[in-house]
């Protein structure tokens, strides 16, 4: 049970933003800009960074829902998502994405751990300032979302099937603030 009285039966962050739409509206706006609006990184790649950070933070709700979104967006290459979650090497992952995921993993632990060498490695494989900025901010943002979702002990479905429709919704509709059931 969640630590506070959020709408019952609503999973994860959705229950929290229904409880507090004043802050929730801006969190959803941030997610939409960061994960969907134009960027040199595709929405699939950005969802992959979100999934990687959430897996490292052991946040089941965020990891499962963003992994589901990433699988939808990667379509035929969806197996890349589980490779990243389990730390397995795969030809589906570009050297540039490997370097950006490395930076995101450092940010997940602490911003101070990102080294000049980490950034130089990403640049060697074609990452520019914008790629690096977005990778850092996505990793930082999920260091927030993961703590928000788990810090209030929000409802976390355990059946992986429950995340598939969430992934489809996120892939097609993006981040739309959910409304409290009447």
């Amino acid at each position: 049970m969640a630590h506070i009285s959020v709408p019952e039966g609503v999973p994860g962050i959705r229950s929290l933003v229904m409880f507090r739409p004043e802050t929730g509206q801006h969190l959803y706006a941030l997610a939409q800009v960061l994960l969907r609006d134009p960027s040199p990184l595709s929405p699939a790649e950005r969802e992959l960074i979100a999934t990687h950070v959430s897996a490292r933070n052991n946040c089941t709700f965020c990891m499962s829902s963003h992994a589901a979104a990433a699988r939808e967006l990667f379509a035929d290459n969806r197996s890349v998502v589980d490779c990243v979650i389990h730390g397995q090497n795969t030809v589906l992952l570009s050297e540039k994405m490997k370097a950006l995921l490395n930076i995101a993993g450092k940010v997940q632990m602490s911003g101070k751990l990102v080294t000049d060498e980490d950034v130089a490695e990403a640049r060697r494989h074609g990452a520019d300032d914008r790629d690096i900025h977005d990778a850092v901010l996505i990793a930082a943002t999920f260091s927030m979302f993961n703590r928000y979702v788990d810090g209030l002990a929000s409802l976390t479905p355990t059946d992986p099937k429950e995340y598939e429709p969430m992934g489809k919704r996120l892939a097609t509709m993006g981040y739309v603030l959910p409304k409290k059931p009447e």
Partner: protein
Amino acid sequence: MAHIDLPEGLPGIRGPMALRPETSKPLNEFAEVLLRGDNTLTRGERELIATHVSYLNDCFFCQNAHGGLAQHYLSCDLEQMDKMKIDPDTAAISDKLKSLLSIAGSVQKGGKHVTSQQIEKAKSFGATDLEIHDTVLIAAAFCMFNRYVDGLGTWAPQDRMFYVNRAKARAEEGYASYNPYN
């Protein structure tokens, strides 16, 4: 030197905020509601939570920028501010605020570190669901802001009085629509 090319001379988060107005907008609107909006927690209490988390994350810019604001709102000196941010349990603050700072400290480690006992204790001192929610979200948010600032290797003035001296003007300016070039 910062990891990416940022507008010169802007301290801390102001560099990336100036660089990427698209993400800055939701981030600043979020901070405005969370730290300055109508709330039973005072602005000083909320800035103290932000400062404590930024101290735990060892983010020099954030702990001094928000420490300066907390000091301004709470009308205390730098020494008292440091005591509160470093060891809130022995500081001259209410039991309720101590219990909320304890929750914030657990969120800093990871959302799952927050225990039901901590929540019960905060409630026993009169904390409401909304206050607990906002405490968790402020702590989570600063795990994001701290990582954004340090993950990009931003520059920060080392003279701590820089932050104390500009706090009053920053408090009047707010977060929603400030000019990062100021």
